[in-house]
């Protein structure tokens, strides 16, 4: 008898649970206010946007904004599934320079130039040219930049001068390697470079090294070039630099790990995103020098990335979505961030006018000019010495690159860990790239 009562109880409980879960999913919407959903990448600039959202809703009382924040990997998966399946869950999302041309071509995201034309105060010509090109498809902007970055070399002036090294503004990789070895000691490592597998982690700095060493992923006929001497030299250089003067456990070091190591004075130099300098604290903030991305054969080897607001074609609230995107990427927003949260919080790398604001120049001091110039000179269409059939600096702008890049960087991580030779890794990587290249050979 007791059993039967128990069973009935469980059934009731489960029914209640299912019922409440279902009713929770419905509701919302309606009325004269429009709610737009923004899928945003989890970074400090987006966290600031969340804090300032009331400034938008107070000026636009008929629009409510729901921001879903996700880490980069998950964001990319969610958003890709959403646009590919045309489900219209989001009205805006943050996408990078990698996605914009690919998705524009497929018609997954909306051409924003008609919207921009409607707002005379938006001033699209103020957007930094390199960024604007990277976010355009057939000369039309398909996404508006919220935050932009290139790469540069950050170094501790005190540590380098103690070792008798001076760093030029435009260093070569050989100079950087020599400096790294000179400052390397038992307590401080010479340089931090990303070794963490992933196309957006390890491969970003590594590919810029390959580019300036004269290497490329594919030739004009989409034949993989990873077994070329340039790739061999670049990868050997990168791995040897890590082994002789790099951070320990390099296979786990990404942007965050290197930032921590640099902030704690564990490494004397760091080649990474220009935004890294905005996060310096203590001695790292006061004693740092900044140099342009190191080079070998090709000059201006810095990468280019911009988290931008794109609008899926499946959105049913495009006008409201644009109103928000307009606000979040406008000159006024930059000033709003500066006055409300402090000028160091300003999302960098989007508008030229940001860099002529005296308050920002004061806050961003040493690295503002390097950032602006690096972004301005980063050209997604001419990143390599030899001609290539693809666009992109630290990536190849094709659908398959996410998977290809992840697999290849895993092989390189194995080299860094000492598990295989440079040549063995490049052989495997070349085979992987060959399979991808075939899709484009006709």
């Amino acid at each position, binding site marked *: 008898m007791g059993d039967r009562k128990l069973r009935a109880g469980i059934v009731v409980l489960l029914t209640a649970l299912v019922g409440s879960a279902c009713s929770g999913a419905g509701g919302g919407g309606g009325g004269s206010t429009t709610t737009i959903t923004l899928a945003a990448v989890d970074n400090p600039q987006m966290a600031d946007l969340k804090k300032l959202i009331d400034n938008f809703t107070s000026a636009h009382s008929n629009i409510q904004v729901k921001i879903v924040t996700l880490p980069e990997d998950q964001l990319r998966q969610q958003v*890709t599934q959403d646009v590919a399946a045309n489900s219209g869950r989001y009205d805006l999302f943050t996408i990078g320079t990698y996605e914009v041309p690919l998705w524009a071509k497929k018609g997954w995201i909306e051409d924003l130039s008609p919207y921009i034309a409607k707002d005379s105060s938006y001033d699209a010509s103020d957007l930094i040219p390199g960024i604007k090109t990277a976010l355009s498809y057939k000369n039309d902007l398909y996404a508006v930049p919220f935050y932009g970055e290139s790469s540069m070399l950050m170094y501790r002036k005190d540590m380098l001068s103690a070792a008798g090294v001076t760093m030029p503004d435009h260093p070569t990789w050989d100079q950087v390697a020599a400096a790294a070895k000179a400052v390397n000691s038992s307590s401080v490592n010479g340089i931090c470079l990303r070794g963490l*597998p992933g196309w957006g982690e390890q491969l970003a700095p590594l590919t810029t090294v390959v580019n300036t060493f004269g290497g490329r992923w594919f030739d004009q006929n989409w034949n993989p070039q990873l077994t070329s001497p340039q790739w061999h030299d670049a990868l050997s250089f990168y791995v040897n630099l890590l082994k002789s003067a790099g951070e*320990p*456990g390099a*296979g786990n070091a990404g942007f965050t790990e290197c930032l921590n190591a640099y902030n704690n004075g564990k490494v004397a130099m760091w080649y990474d995103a220009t935004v890294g300098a905005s996060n310096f604290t203590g001695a790292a903030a006061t004693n740092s020098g900044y140099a342009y991305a190191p080079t070998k054969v090709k000059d201006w080897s810095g990468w280019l990335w911009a988290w931008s607001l794109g609008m899926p074609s499946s959105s049913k609230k495009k006008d409201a979505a644009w109103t928000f995107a307009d606000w979040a990427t406008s000159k006024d927003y930059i000033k709003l961030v500066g006055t409300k949260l402090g000028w160091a919080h300003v999302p960098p790398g989007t508008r030229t006018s940001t860099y002529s604001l005296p308050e920002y120049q004061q806050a961003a001091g040493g690295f503002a000019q390097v950032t602006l110039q690096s972004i301005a000179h980063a050209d997604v269409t001419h990143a390599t010495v030899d001609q290539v059939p693809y666009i992109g600096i630290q990536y190849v702008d094709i659908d398959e690159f*996410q998977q290809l890049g*992840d697999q290849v960087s895993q092989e390189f991580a*194995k080299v860094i860990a000492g598990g*295989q030779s440079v040549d063995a890794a490049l052989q495997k990587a070349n085979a992987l790239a060959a399979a991808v290249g075939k899709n484009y050979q006709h």
Partner: protein
Amino acid sequence: MKTANRSILRSVAGRGGERSPSAASVGRREAWARRLPLLPAFVYIFLVTQIPFVLTIYYSFFSWNLLKPGSFRFAGLENYASLLTNESIRIAVWNTVLLTLCVIVISVVLGLGVATILNNEVFGKGLMRTLMIAPFLIMPTAGALIWKDTLLNPLFGLIPYLLSPFGLGRVDWVNQFPMVSVVAVEVWRWTPFMMLIILAGLQSQNPEVLEAARVDGANAIQQFRRITLPLVRPFIELGALLGSLFVVQTFDSIFMLTYGGPGEDTTNIPFLLYLVAFQGFSIGQASAIGVVAVIITTIVATFALRTLFSIFQIEARR
């Protein structure tokens, strides 16, 4: 409590034989009266588990990449054929087998050891048992993160620090010995599970039998080998099979610890499936891997359930 459980088992085991042919219609109505309230649950479970599975089988016969609009086309057995030739799959299958075997064998041995200790009257037994179970209750993701960052990190990890007197201070465990690291984390997680099941077996053995053996002059090792071990054998089998069912599907710790790398050194079938589906967005290929994984798991599960029922029958017969 114990007697109540036994009576349920007995009634479950004894069902079927009780009914007489004349009472068949009454019995059927009664059976339906019993099933009817469960029907919604059954239909619900059926819908949410079987429709996705049927869809997965359906997709596995198509070539479909989510990133390529218009790529959806019938591919027959192409996806399955490529499973046979693809080197990544072979590596993943091997890694899955290696990982599962190592984890199960080590955690059963350790679990048996700990269970034997806890079966005796030792000081602080209750506290020890609780502490031993803890790893199984910690979220796998959180557990793996703690292992990676606070225990194994070569710069500030506890294990390299403790091993530094032996010259192993700056070993980058996760990258230099990736499979060892994953196995270590999984063993840490599954030992409590094995211990619990084996402990249940040990506690169900009749102390009089052991006493009789002692009177007959058997020493501790003989008692363990000749009496205890045969008795807990079905429990060990059950633990091993249930455990392997879960360890085959290991994902969390690999995702957090090694991300399948370096190279493909720790990519098992579930992780490969994740990479193909969510990094490559090849739905057809991923579905084929999924179907094969389900078939493998089903085979293991069949053995697990058979062992489970044989234990229940032994229990019920008592």
